[in-house]
């Protein structure tokens, strides 16, 4: 009898000891509808808790990509994964309210305006998913790597044109990606076109790009629109631009350049590498 009681108590204790911390470690069925959050979740070691990611979450490759859409989210389809945490980038179609009605926890992580916000979001994901230490360590690694890359470049006054589409949509210094160029002390040609209406993403005229003669051109329209160093060099009139003449046209992965997750380090290192040349 006593033996049996001890056995029961021991079992209960074991369950509490083993399952307890895991339960306290937060959500076990995460659905991420934000490609950036997906990258961050896997980078901080919360990947095993992720059961589904949206159709745009293409990194890392092992992420459980589904047909869920963060752009036009379907609450039923999300709920079918029985999530205990849903991370979204924006509240599209009232999805946040609908999910909360189903008692599903929702975390909204909108586009970061600068690195500080990006770091805060990674730390927030760490705190909620039970990977606080890993998240903090990741942020420190990112900060070090970015500082090191920036320091490795010569401080020369140069201008940059960041291309988002072949019809010359670009990003000003007010945007996240523009903030990265500011770290390098680059002058952004888009800033002259900055207006409150463009939201930091104006469309430049080709004439202006040619006359502002950027020393660095970064193509973030390689995947969407098939642009390349060769295609830019062959554009009418572009062969005169300093960046083309000095081979300072860089083709980057669109999604790396448009997200604010851990891979921003790669982007910074790519830019640093080009700036170190010559």
């Amino acid at each position, binding site marked *: 009898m006593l033996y049996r009681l001890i056995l029961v108590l021991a079992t209960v204790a074991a369950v509490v000891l083993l399952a307890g911390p895991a339960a306290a470690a937060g959500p076990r069925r995460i659905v991420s509808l934000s490609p950036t959050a997906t990258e961050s979740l896997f980078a901080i070691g919360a990947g095993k808790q992720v059961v589904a990611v949206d159709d745009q979450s293409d990194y890392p490759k092992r992420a459980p990509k589904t047909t869920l859409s963060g752009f036009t989210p379907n609450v039923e389809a999300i709920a079918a994964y029985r999530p205990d945490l849903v991370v979204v980038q924006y509240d599209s179609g009232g999805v946040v309210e609908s999910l909360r009605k189903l008692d599903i926890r929702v975390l909204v992580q909108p586009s970061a305006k600068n690195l500080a916000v990006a770091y805060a979001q990674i730390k927030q994901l760490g705190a909620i998913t039970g990977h606080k230490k890993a998240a903090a360590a990741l942020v420190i690694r990112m900060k070090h790597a970015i500082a090191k890359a920036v320091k490795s470049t010569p401080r020369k006054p140069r201008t940059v044109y960041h291309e988002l589409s072949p019809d010359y949509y670009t990003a000003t210094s007010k945007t996240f990606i523009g903030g990265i160029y500011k770290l390098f002390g680059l002058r952004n040609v888009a800033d002259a076109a900055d207006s409150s209406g463009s939201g930091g993403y104006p469309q430049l005229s080709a004439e*202006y790009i040619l006359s502002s003669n950027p020393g660095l051109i970064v193509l973030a329209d390689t995947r969407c629109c098939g642009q390349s160093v060769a295609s830019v060099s062959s554009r009418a009139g572009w062969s005169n631009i300093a960046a083309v003449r000095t081979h300072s046209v860089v083709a980057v992965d669109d999604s790396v350049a448009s997200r604010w997750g851990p891979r921003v380090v790669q982007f910074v290192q790519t830019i640093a590498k080009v700036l170190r040349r010559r």
Partner: protein
Amino acid sequence: MRLAGAAVFLAAALLTGVLVGPVDLGALNVVHATFAHVFGLHSPLSGADDAILWQLRLPRVVLGAFVGGTLAAAGAAYQGVFRNPLADPYLLGAAAGAGLGATLVAAYAPGSGLAGDLLPISAFAGAAVAVLAAYVLGRSAGAAAGPAALILAGVTIAAFFTALQIFVQQQHVDTVQAVYSWLLGRLSTAGWREVGIIAPYAIASWLILLGHRRLLDVLAVGDDEAAALGVNVARVRLLVVVAATIATAAAVAVSGLIAFVGIIVPHTIRLLFGGSYRMLMPLSIIVGAGFLVFADVIARTIMSPAELPIGVVTAFFGAPFFAVVLRTGRRYA
């Protein structure tokens, strides 16, 4: 007299278009360099400025003139053959078809993208297929149904193609920005290549439409009456629609969907100078060309160095102007 006035308007537009831009090249230099290029002489401008003028600004002005003239002429033609003042070049589904064509390229051939050779071809094919489908559907309703059946068929096809386009776009969220910018119309990436694409279609269609001016006037009295006067109504309608549609498809292929030109230019001319196609057709071509060139000057300078989508300019400045003409005009035909 009217033609001379319209020609002066177009000349002023072309001159403004070439002289004004986000980059100040100097009026004398621009004229000098343009002549230098035309006659193979040495350009006074530096390499970069010369490229701006010859590779960017001039083709853009020329393209704007071709697109504007084509859309206005097509609009006037459609309004005539359908006896419907609301008809515009996109009435029979050309816009929806071209939009679907462009979206398909953006979604399934991202390698070529919105800058490649595939987009104009696909948009052109989409527009042609949509209008052809509308025509076949409209004709199946029988000749007795008249132009109304054709318009309804166009609306049906347009709705269906638009639904397909939005579906494809939703499946490929990453293409939204590119497709949206295309839908608003653009001359911002214009080059001589685009001019070469549209020029033969535009000129051929202008000639056909100009040749049918008198028949369009006859059609205005009604199908039966026109037939009684010895006009083969169905044949005239088909020929005019084909000419207007092919030119519209070519315009859409190189510049996206530029709204409003096909409506306000012909109507403004009607209100100011009367509705006879004898004058309306040539005036539409000339004034439409000048109007779009002026609109593009505004699009690329008002927010300089940023661009404003040209479709926004044509509607924003065109609509109030048309409202004034509508209030003061008395000669509506």
